[in-house]
């Protein structure tokens, strides 16, 4: 029998980024026992890297903004595949969620009259992103953390959850281990909120950290929940491309929001060459109008650099493929040019984009106030994820909730910048609230010892698998991870086809076999190799889900592009979401689910905003 510590909670939150912290704070208001498990130290989760801002129709800078416009922008950006109820709740509630952060100590940049300042961002009709320079994520996570530590939440830092535990149909707990000594922990809980973030580590070029291995997606899937729209992986158009070791690190969209322009090696602003029909009416048709927009001219339309991320990323790939790229395989992003337009441009850039200035100065020897940056697409975010009820965030498994990046529905085929930080506040709060309600209405269910023993044995298997005998057949955990990342980048990246996706699924299957025999050296204490070996289960599960959903969607829409199906919709097919579920025999199954018809009042908003 496995040896482990047991911790009992009413509500257990897995993940301590913005969504997890917000859920924990909310659940703790109900006088319940709340536990929070996170893979890293508190305050280090991926939210900390968010730069540009949090979207909320506060209408502090432009009074024409409202939740209705934000709703319509989100739906349009998602190519109308979003869950409209989630988009509605999100647009309505994010202003309150942002204001509440101020009550917890957050200090956003200010307007002239002392309110919260808002900036322009891609796909948002009006200046809507509350921000703090280009370190908004840090401000948010610190405000949540510093408030959260006084709410009586028990935090388990540097703990990894390996599997959820179920008793009958209900989720009843989670099995994990603490990194320091490698000891097992069993968490029993009446309700569980997954807030584990994304999947970027399935790709070679990514802005995501080691933690982003799709844990929540995978835990939920294996527990019987459904995943939707997994084919929609956002490739952020502007990641660093040089030097090689920093490839993929994010360059905030805020650079373009402040007037930064994209050019190719012919010095052409290529974004003017291809403006999608859905956005023609809202996009500037000359550089001067675009510049005026970034400077707050209310009559001007936005520059094409601020079109949605999927489109900008594709245009960059086109420029590079057709030989018009920068020396290191990207394009140029230039903010230094604004000195033609404003006095004190150097100071202005350093004030508005301080961490970009330092990032390029320190990592690439580039002074962005003097010369252009080189940028190219980087895996950034997954729109797809765990299917949840729009209001409560509960999955198909009773007692299991999900919020933030690992949940899905709000962003459809493409997420607008700034809508992620607001997503995690709005739905983190809702998940915490409804998980607490579930915990109050339901009893603790006993855990199944047999299940725990089985998972414990599986967790220790990498130590028991024989070491490489030198024949070269066996691969180490890091080798398997690197090979998966190469294959996902090459075959399931920005451009996909039936051929590449079928091949990807074969590669994933063969890597699954290798992962089953992977050997970890050393002992259980803070062992990164063992951890990487255990991460492989999640990474391979979500990679298969992404490839399978991408194969099913035979069209190119939003972030999903099929070379063999360039049209936006399949002839004759109406709008649908892809749904992935584990079948009774353990295989992964994909099906289509028609997008629900829009409520009449919501349809009206969309028609009005066209």
């Amino acid at each position, binding site marked *: 029998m496995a040896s482990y510590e047991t911790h009992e909670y009413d509500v257990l939150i897995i993940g301590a980024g913005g969504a997890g912290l917000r859920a924990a704070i909310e659940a703790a208001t109900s006088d319940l026992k709340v536990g929070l498990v996170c893979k890293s130290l508190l305050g*280090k989760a991926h939210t*900390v890297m968010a730069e540009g801002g949090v979207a909320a129709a506060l209408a502090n800078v432009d009074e024409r903004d409202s939740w209705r416009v934000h709703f319509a922008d989100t739906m349009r950006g998602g190519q109308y595949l979003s869950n409209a109820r989630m988009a509605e709740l999100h647009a309505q509630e994010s202003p309150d969620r942002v204001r509440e952060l101020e*009550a917890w100590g957050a200090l956003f940049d200010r307007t002239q009259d002392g309110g919260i300042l808002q900036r322009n961002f891609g796909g948002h009709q009006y200046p809507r992103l509350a921000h703090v320079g280009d370190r908004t994520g840090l401000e948010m996570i610190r405000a949540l953390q510093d408030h959260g530590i006084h709410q009586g939440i028990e935090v388990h830092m540097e703990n990894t959850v390996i599997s959820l535990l179920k008793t009958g149909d209900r989720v009843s707990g989670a099995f994990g281990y603490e990194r320091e000594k490698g000891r097992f922990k069993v968490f029993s809980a009446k309700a569980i909120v997954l807030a584990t973030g994304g999947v970027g580590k399935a790709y070679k070029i990514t802005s995501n950290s080691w933690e982003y291995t799709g844990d929540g997606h995978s835990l939920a899937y294996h527990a019987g929940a459904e995943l939707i729209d997994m084919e929609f992986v956002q490739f952020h158009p502007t990641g660093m491309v040089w030097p090689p070791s920093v490839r993929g690190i994010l360059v905030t969209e805020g650079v373009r929001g402040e007037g930064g322009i994209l050019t190719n090696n012919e010095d052409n602003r290529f974004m003017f060459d291809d403006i999608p029909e859905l956005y023609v009416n809202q996009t500037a048709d000359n550089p001067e109008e675009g510049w005026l927009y970034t400077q707050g001219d209310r009559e001007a339309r936005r520059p094409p650099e601020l079109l949605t991320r999927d489109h900008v990323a594709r245009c960059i790939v086109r420029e590079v493929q057709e030989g018009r790229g920068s020396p290191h395989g990207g394009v140029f992003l230039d903010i230094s040019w604004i000195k033609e337009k404003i006095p004190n441009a150097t100071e202005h850039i350093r004030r508005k984009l301080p961490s970009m200035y330092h990032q390029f100065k320190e*990592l690439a020897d580039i002074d962005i106030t003097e010369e252009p940056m080189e940028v190219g697409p980087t895996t950034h975010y997954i729109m797809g994820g765990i299917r949840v009820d729009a209001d409560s965030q509960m999955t198909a498994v009773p007692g299991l909730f999900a919020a933030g990046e690992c949940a899905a529905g709000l962003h459809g085929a493409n997420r607008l910048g700034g809508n992620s930080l607001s997503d995690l506040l709005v739905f983190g709060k809702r998940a915490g609230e409804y998980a607490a309600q579930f915990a109050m209405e339901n009893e603790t269910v006993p855990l199944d010892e047999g299940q725990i023993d089985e998972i414990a044995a599986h967790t220790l298997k990498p130590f028991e698998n024989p070491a490489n005998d030198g024949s070269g057949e066996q691969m180490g955990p890091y080798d398997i991870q690197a090979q998966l990342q190469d294959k996902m980048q090459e075959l399931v990246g920005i451009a996909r086809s039936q051929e590449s996706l079928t091949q990807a699924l074969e590669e994933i299957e063969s890597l699954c076999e290798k992962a089953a025999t992977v050997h970890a*050296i050393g002992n259980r204490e803070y062992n990164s190799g063992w951890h990487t070996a255990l991460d492989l289960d999640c990474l391979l599960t979500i990679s298969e889900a992404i490839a399978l959903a991408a194969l099913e969607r035979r069209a190119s829409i939003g972030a999903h592009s099929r070379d063999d199906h360039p049209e936006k919709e399949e002839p004759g097919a109406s709008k649908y979401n892809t749904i992935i579920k584990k079948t009774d025999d353990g295989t992964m199954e994909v099906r289509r689910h028609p997008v629900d018809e829009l409520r009449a009042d919501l349809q009206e908003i969309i028609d009005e905003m066209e």
Partner: protein
Amino acid sequence: MAKATFRIWRGNADGAEFVDYDTEVSEGMVVLDAVHRIQAEQANDMAVRWNCKAGKCGSCSAEVNGQPKLMCMTRLNDLPLDEPVTVEPMRAFPLIKDLVTDVSWNFRVKEKMKPFTPRPPDAEDGTWRMEQEDIDHVQEFRKCIECFLCQDVCHVLREHDLHEEFIGPRFFVYAASLEMHPIDTENRLEELKDSDGIGYCNITKCCTKVCPEHITITDNAIIPLKERVVDEFYDPIKKLFRVFSR
């Protein structure tokens, strides 16, 4: 491709030592890249904390050639590679394993400090009005990524081990961010004087020098706090006033 040697601290609280690893290095690499390459190719079980790899999360703090640094922001071309590059864990905290230390003390310190307590909202919608110039300093303090390098280098903690009597530069910055927050109403001066031990700081500015976020810790946070403590408790007129108002 060029090769370089990295002399990395390996072991746990029961015993540890430097181990040399040769690895290939290429243009633009940072110390963390080299450590990761060694981990993937030669030492799978090596313990190292990291997250963002972009200087934003403050996880990969270590001592590189004896200097407190974020490994992700320390470029190899700024180091002499003709001799081994030493990489050690932070010395002001107990070792867990290899490059990872037990920094939990910092989390306990923060929890004990009086939390942010705002005045009632200025407007009916529950919001406050603040001028940008009034929050510039506080925003500087809030840039802190909690890497704890300032704690590592502070001799009150590192050499004198006064963790029970002194909260360290990080938490003076935190206290300053609260005390100077335009809408906070709490007073933390008594704790700063007594349990937080601000008097131990003799403003050698070591913390300011190592801050990867370039926060002017000593000049903008610690000295103003010291002045407030002096004004509150050592000002002769106020002292007299306190005697008579008892």
